[in-house]
């Protein structure tokens, strides 16, 4: 399993647009990708669940990928975070 922590810098947090982008990206991999905040873990591919985490600016989230393509999946998602959030 591959995982990384990320501190959100976007001032509205993980809002609809990046959540949608992340969900779309997560679906492209075979690995299961999760996002966790304060012990609550949801699938990154599920847009509404990700939004329901209510991730705000300054929050730390842990993203993990598990599966055959976990290395590239984790790298790609990390890129999306740093570009958009």
């Amino acid at each position: 399993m591959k995982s990384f922590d990320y501190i959100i810098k976007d001032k509205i947090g993980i809002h609809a647009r990046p959540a949608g982008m992340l969900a779309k990206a997560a679906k492209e991999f075979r690995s299961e990708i999760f996002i966790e905040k304060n012990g609550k873990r949801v699938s990154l591919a599920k847009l509404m669940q990700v939004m329901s985490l209510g991730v705000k600016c300054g929050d730390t989230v842990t993203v993990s990928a598990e599966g055959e393509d976990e290395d590239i999946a984790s790298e790609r998602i990390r890129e999306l975070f740093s570009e958009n959030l």
Partner: protein
Amino acid sequence: MRKYFGKGVYGAIAVGKISLFRKKETEVCRHGISDVESELTRLAKAKEKATAELSEIYERALREVGEDNASIFETHIMMLDDDDYNESIRNIIENRHVNAEYAVAVTAENFAGMFSSMEDSYMQGRAADVKDISSRLISCMSEEEAGDAMPTEESVICADDLAPSQTVLFDKEKVLAFVTCHGSRNSHTAILARNMNIPAVVGVGKEFLSEIKDGDTAFVDGYTGEVIINPDEETMKMMKEKQKNDLEKKELLKTLKGKENITLDGRKINIYANIGSVDHVGAALFNDAGGIGLFRSEFLYLERSDYPSEKTQFDAYKRVLECMGGRKVIIRTLDIGADKKADYFGLSHEENPAMGFRAIRICLERTDIFKTQLRALFRASAYGNLGIMFPMITSVREVERILEICDEVKKELSSEGTAYNAKTEIGIMIETPAAALISEKLARLVDFFSIGTNDLTQYTLAADRQNPLAEQFCDPHHEAVLRLIEMTAENAHKQGIWVGICGELASDTSLTREFLRMGIDELSVSPTYILKVREAVRNTDLSKE
């Protein structure tokens, strides 16, 4: 005439006929089904259709409001494709053997409920998105051709609530304004209205719709959130005027915001704002003020029952300084007297308050009040670029006394270890003929002058500005007044200090050229005049007659 208040979403003003927008009510009934498979097929077809519609709306929004705002519809498409959302609908159909419409409606309620119970107002706003995609999905299942009645002529659209997809589908040319009973500033509808530059007021209350009808006239003020239905003639005239000014100002903003205050031949001048409360800082910044040239501190004293504490004052001063970043903020100390008084000061009635016990005269006698204000001011000086200004000066002795008290206050703060900016500029108002005439001496004591033309005019011309009979004599263009201003400017520059004008005359663009010629360094005007004065400065060429 009736008035309603909501939240103004986009600062603009509109007047026009109301067109009520009623969503086609798609009543969702629950009924049992036996063929689960065919119900799931209906659902899948509807989803396909809804997605296609949303793609079309997305394309349209892309053209009309730009990619950043159109992206909400892309998100809608993804929400419609969300695993949990779809699973919930499917489960309800399969387990409860009910029609797809009902399953969608129940799912929409649940998901919308989840978002509206979140703390974050942005997320609460997403509940509307869930409802929007769900009602689209439901209407895609019906046989009838969907589509809402669109206004055919220019109108103020009034609705219970508007979905983002509806907002963007309106013909921009036909919409003068949006008014909705519900909705928040953060809703996508609000955001879209802002980007379509359409005045909008949301959340005026649920009674609104039942109390208006098609064809009523509505005045919509997107700045204040005010909506007036069928205004009387006088109100209408005022509103039209307000709208006209607003449009002119917007035009100015477009061309002048961010530009320098510089004449054609290269002379620069500062244009600052006059404000009377912390709330006006926004207007000053919006209109591109280079600083605050006059912050009247009276608001802290008036309309209350006791003296404001050092902390109350400190908080207010600090806020203004912080909001203005490093820009200059000149705060004028208490300027009250028998004409503008607070009961708790216990001032006695005067026959001629303009020439009586007021402003600095009170402060130098009641040094306790004065020192409290100075302590608050110096403490706040650590948070920005502060200048302190004293009103109603008539003698050198007064200024010397003020400086002594300032030094006492600074010493106190130093010994307490409280931070303040030791280089805080100290200035005085030149608003009496006496101060103008001895300005050469006064200039040696302070860092700047600010000329208060309203009082300078009334004292120079012996014409009480409160007395209507004396109005004809109260002419600020009088040569005597202009000579005193010029004399003050010359004396200031001889001593190497700067001089500004903060009275109403500063915004009189027929004198801008004259002030520039005199070498005035700063004009401080009400926020709404800043850009007008900037325009006048930029059209002036001092090298030509």
